[in-house]
């Protein structure tokens, strides 16, 4: 069944969209990542204009995160004060990101920036996570207790605040900075930013893995919501019809994902996520390195006058 998207101005197969939404939803429920890093490239691939894919991706992530965070709120695995601090940084970052996005779309370099961002961030994060979780898996097999986290430079910064749910007493500066970076990436790449935020919360802030997913989902809802409205008002690139089909697939997938996540161990979950992140990174790097079949490309929207 074909469906015509009013803002993207293309006609696509509704079942393909539904399937993409579902797949991303499963990941979202399992890992607490928005799944945007997978969604945006897939939307490019089926012929959605990049600007529309990024803005609509943000809109879809709002829905899947709401769905996911409700499940976490019931399990009390959301650190609300931490979420608020991350959010303040996130909104500032998103505002800057939308500006950068608009400027770079005009000069034709947005695709390159988006791809480079993906390759660099996914490569670094995926690699680190893979090595770390492999070590953790080996430790747990040997039955040794995991090492207690040492105090690092993060703990010597001013402006300390108590985060009861996470059992932390740290400065608000690192979470603000993490939120800012993630907000910016959210606007530029059309992602929730969970793939950066989740590891940053675990390794940099030292939050317990259990509350990380719920808290990141909480922050993602508001940042992607903000990004959606910003893109809608600055470049009219949010396609509600496209978002709705992706959401339908996504919310169903997210529920399946949450159930799967409960049956797997945290280490196994992280290894799976690491492999997935590395896979997407590799695929995108190939696109940059291999000579494209068509060297030329056309741009109709956002042509500088």
């Amino acid at each position: 069944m074909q469906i015509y998207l009013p803002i993207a101005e293309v006609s696509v197969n509704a079942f393909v969209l539904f399937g993409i939404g579902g797949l991303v939803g499963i990941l979202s429920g399992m890992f607490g990542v928005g799944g945007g890093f997978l969604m945006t490239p897939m939307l490019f691939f089926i012929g959605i204009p990049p600007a529309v894919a990024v803005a609509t991706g943000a809109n879809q992530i709002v829905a899947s995160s709401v769905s996911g965070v409700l499940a976490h709120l019931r399990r009390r695995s959301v650190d609300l004060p931490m979420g608020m601090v991350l959010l303040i940084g996130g909104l500032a970052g998103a505002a800057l990101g939308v500006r950068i996005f608009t400027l770079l779309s005009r000069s034709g370099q947005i695709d390159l920036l988006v791809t480079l961002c993906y390759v660099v961030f996914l490569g670094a994060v995926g690699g680190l996570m893979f090595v770390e979780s492999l070590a953790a898996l080996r430790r747990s097999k040997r039955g040794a207790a995991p090492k207690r986290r040492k105090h690092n430079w993060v703990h010597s910064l001013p402006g300390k605040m108590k985060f009861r749910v996470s059992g932390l007493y740290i400065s608000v500066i690192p979470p603000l900075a993490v939120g800012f970076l993630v907000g910016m990436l959210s606007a530029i790449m059309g992602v929730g930013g969970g793939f950066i935020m989740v590891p940053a919360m675990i390794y940099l802030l030292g939050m317990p893995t259990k509350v990380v997913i719920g808290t990141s989902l909480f922050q993602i809802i508001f940042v992607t919501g903000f990004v959606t409205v910003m893109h809608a008002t600055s470049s009219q690139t949010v396609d509600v019809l496209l978002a709705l089909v992706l959401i339908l697939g996504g919310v169903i997938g997210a529920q399946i994902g949450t159930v799967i996540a409960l049956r797997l161990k945290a280490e196994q979950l992280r290894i799976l996520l690491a492999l997935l992140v590395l896979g997407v990174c590799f695929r995108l790097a190939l696109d940059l390195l291999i000579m494209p079949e068509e060297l030329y490309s056309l741009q109709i929207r956002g042509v500088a006058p």
Partner: protein
Amino acid sequence: MSSARVFGVIFLLLALIRPAWAEEVVLGLSRSEIPITATFNGSEILVFGAIKREAPLPEGALDVIVTIAGPDAPVQVRRKERRFGIWVNASSVRIGSAPGFYAVASTRALPQILSETEDLRHQISIPLALRTVGASEDAPDVDAFVEALLRIRQEEGTYKILENAVALDEKTLFRTAVFLPPRLSEGDYRTRIFLLRDEAVIDSYETSIDVRKVGLERWLFNLAYERPLVYGIMALVVACLAGWGASAAARAVRG
């Protein structure tokens, strides 16, 4: 100069001019409006008509060309080059205006039935539909960029050369079908029919096909462009409700 010879020249001139008013195009379209609905998946347009004559059939081959052109828009054509080991957009050319859709259907191959001067005068073939004059350029080979534009658009089916696609019966009735792809933008699609004899246009007819979004598509599109803030907030509310609804539904299913 003898009067007989002058008479002969006038007669010859008359003979040359005569077809211009002796043969006329009468046109029909299968539809003059194309509504873009939520299930729009491209549309086929049937262009048909007759050639009206007030004099006996003149000598020579008769040909028909049908063109359909979508709304014009500026296009930025970019070319990738290898820089620091990766492929990046390095140079670009701005084409002043290019139709979003262009189809040329004809009874025979264009070069056989249309002279270059007539093509220039009536702007029939695809390259003439582009306005490349004053193309802002930071690349010396503008032609390569224009060729790329034509190639990409032909591959995606928005520029079409349909040779031998116009059927001409009894030298009077003609018809052709042109498929408009799903990737279509709104606007007036200028439709022209040319009647040709001896590589020259002897009559033409012009009309337009109205391609418009309707219903939900129309409403969403207008809202997005006219009241973007309301549209953005609506998108958010829809997303939140869908997320909450799914969560509630899943809980109900699991008990």
